[in-house]
């Protein structure tokens, strides 16, 4: 029915609903970051998220697809929204979740990351979703475990599911994610969301303008995108927003810097996305925010609640994307030949 290994990608691969020919399925053993994925693999993941978007609209949202499977949620950094999103995704697929929360964990008592993870692994989850304050921590854990690892955010490195749900949101509104002008506002230096978005949309020919206070705009960020990706920096909002098709507003991260931050009023004066500034962008430009928003700081309430804001949709799409990932990564036993009762043999 479907080849298990990744085959050469289809030529003009349309959105999932129109695929009637042999569908290409990709195997993923982990999702550690967007950097390692090809554009075809990303398109596949976005297409596979669509059925799960639909499930969210059903009166009955629960499936038995992953019944009997368990997902370990190892969140070593505090997070409410992403953790609940993954937990919901697992639950809607019928899977159970094992919850590890940093505040109340044995990590506080000095247990090493490796020991904590081995302990979790000994309870035999089918995959582990991990968020950690150290860049590269999921990479490190994946080297020591046999089960799939999904990166829910590592330090200032990547937040792949966020980039996927952002891309899905953009694609739903604009019909595509190719060659768009994407502006990212805020603390770029410490943002894993910015990096993942650059890696993803950069593979589709998008052009980036990064804008924020100069000390959070490292020169080198212009060269960390995919090959050929155009990235420019500016500290001026008017320059950054002109011609933007998509605007991603970042949260001001006070917990990741061990240095003095900008006074709030300064930030609002110079960098807040308000209606006046938004008007400089393309008409109908999309406003995205990874959340949680601080209304009145990086984003004005009128914009957050306005017609161009996709913030709530991002949250819904987040569950769909995470359901698709859990579905794809928690494969079962290897099958041996076609089975009598598999649909391909006719039922």
């Amino acid at each position, binding site marked *: 029915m479907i080849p298990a290994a990744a085959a050469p990608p289809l030529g003009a691969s349309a959105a999932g609903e129109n695929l009637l020919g042999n569908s290409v399925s990709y195997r993923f053993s982990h999702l550690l970051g967007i950097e390692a994925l090809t554009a075809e693999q990303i398109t596949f993941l976005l297409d596979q998220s669509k059925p799960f978007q639909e499930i969210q609209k059903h009166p009955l949202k629960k499936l038995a697809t992953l019944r009997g499977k368990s997902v370990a949620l190892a969140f070593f950094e505090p997070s409410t929204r992403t953790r609940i999103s993954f937990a919901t995704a697992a639950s809607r697929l019928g899977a159970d979740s094992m919850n590890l929360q940093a505040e109340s964990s044995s990590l506080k008592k000095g247990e090493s990351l490796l020991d904590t993870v081995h302990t979790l692994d000994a309870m035999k989850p089918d995959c582990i979703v991990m968020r950690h304050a*150290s860049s*590269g921590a999921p990479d490190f854990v994946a080297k020591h475990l046999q089960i799939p690892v999904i990166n829910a955010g590592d330090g200032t490195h990547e937040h792949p599911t966020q980039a996927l749900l952002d891309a899905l949101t953009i694609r739903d509104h604009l019909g595509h994610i190719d060659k768009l002008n994407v502006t990212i506002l805020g603390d770029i230096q410490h943002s894993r969301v910015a990096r993942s978005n650059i890696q993803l949309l950069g593979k589709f020919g998008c052009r980036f303008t990064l804008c924020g206070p100069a000390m959070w705009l490292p020169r080198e960020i212009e060269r960390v995108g995919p090959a050929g990706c155009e990235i420019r920096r500016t500290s001026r909002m008017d320059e950054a927003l002109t011609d933007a098709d998509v605007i991603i507003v970042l949260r001001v991260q006070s917990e990741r810097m061990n240095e003095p931050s900008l006074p709030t009023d300064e930030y609002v004066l110079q960098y807040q996305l308000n209606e006046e500034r938004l008007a400089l962008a393309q008409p109908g430009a999309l406003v995205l925010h990874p959340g949680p928003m601080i209304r009145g700081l990086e984003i004005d309430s009128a914009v957050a609640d306005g017609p161009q804001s996709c913030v709530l949709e991002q949250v819904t799409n987040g569950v769909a994307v995470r359901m698709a990932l859990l579905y794809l990564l928690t494969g079962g036993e290897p099958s041996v030949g076609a089975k009598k009762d598999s649909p391909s043999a006719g039922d």
Partner: protein
Amino acid sequence: MLWIKNGRVIDPATNIDAKLDVLIDGENIVACGVPDDIAQLAGKNRGAANTTFDATGLIVAPGFIDLHCHLREPGGEASETIVTGTKAAARGGFTAICPMPNTRPVNDNASVTRSIIERATFAAGVRVWPIGACSAGSKGESLAEIAAMKQAGIVAVSDDGKPVANAKLMRQIMDYCGSLGLPVIDHCEDVSLAAGAVMREGETSVRLGHRGMPAAAESICVGRDTQVAALTGGRLHIAHLSAKASLELVRDAKKRGLAVTCEVTPHHFTLIDEDVAYDTNFKMNPPLASREDRDALLAGLADGTVDAIATDHAPHEPSSKAVEFDKAPFGITGFETALALGLQQLVHTGRIKLMRLVELFTTGPARVLGMERRIAPGQPADLTLFSTDHAWTFRSNESASKSRNTPFDGREFKGAPMATIVAGKVICRR
């Protein structure tokens, strides 16, 4: 007597590079010359048996000195002891090593110094010349008991692991050590610029999401230290220099006639920041630098600006390095790969001649310490015999060190230390 035959003697102190034999009696060198002359002298030694060592195909050099290493004892014996560390050093061809004082307790007084030296006499036979702390507890507040430590046997002072952050204290230390004839070795780092950093700041650190420190974190401190050296006229040695900007400051200081010297580690002239990802075997301080920095170091090793190669051997037990990159301690081992890397990166590439490489391991470090190193009658019989073409693969799990933290596991080399002789005894042979 020990008669070393058929070797190629390379001695930077006398500029000799020739096929000569060396004769050793007890702990000292008796002669170095053509085989016939040596045969005559050896023949005179009736009664005692002569041992010969066939050094065919090998270079016979003065005994290597490592100006910078960490033996962890006292206090950190899980990672290394004086016994295991000296064993690894002997395998690396080193006849004398200088352990840094950041032990527990810190080597800031004569009794710790004496205990280290005593431990070493029961170890692998490598000479251990401790470096004492500059400041009490290496806290950077007040002078340590430097004169007492000198009597106990230190050869230099340093607060390695940290800089001497206070310029006034650095001035005092340099003045005081100047009067005692001791060099001051500084680990140059501006603490505020380097705070929280785990690698060199650059494209790689931004892509990986690691906090980085700029080259200026080192060179700002080097600049300050060279000016303090100018003020005091003292002897300043820059530890593990890694940046082009730092090298230029040292070059400039030397031109102005200041007594400033510097050392470079093998990993800094081999690897760069682009080699770092999330493997903690690539995490050390100062971090692996940019391509431009490395190229400048290679040039400095060739043109004489760099005085010595030092390993900064920094063992850490495996479980302490098996953690997230952020949490891992800084440091990699280095004794057993130093010479091979020097041959691979510097000599086999044609950048420097063999004589210069030997200088970087022998007379260079000796000069920093105010000592001599030469193959001549009456000199201590410390020799390093090595091959420039022996093919081998370094395996970390075969290392004599207790620790396995090295980025060079599995690396293939041409050339290795083949025998290490200290005080006339062959303490290690491959």
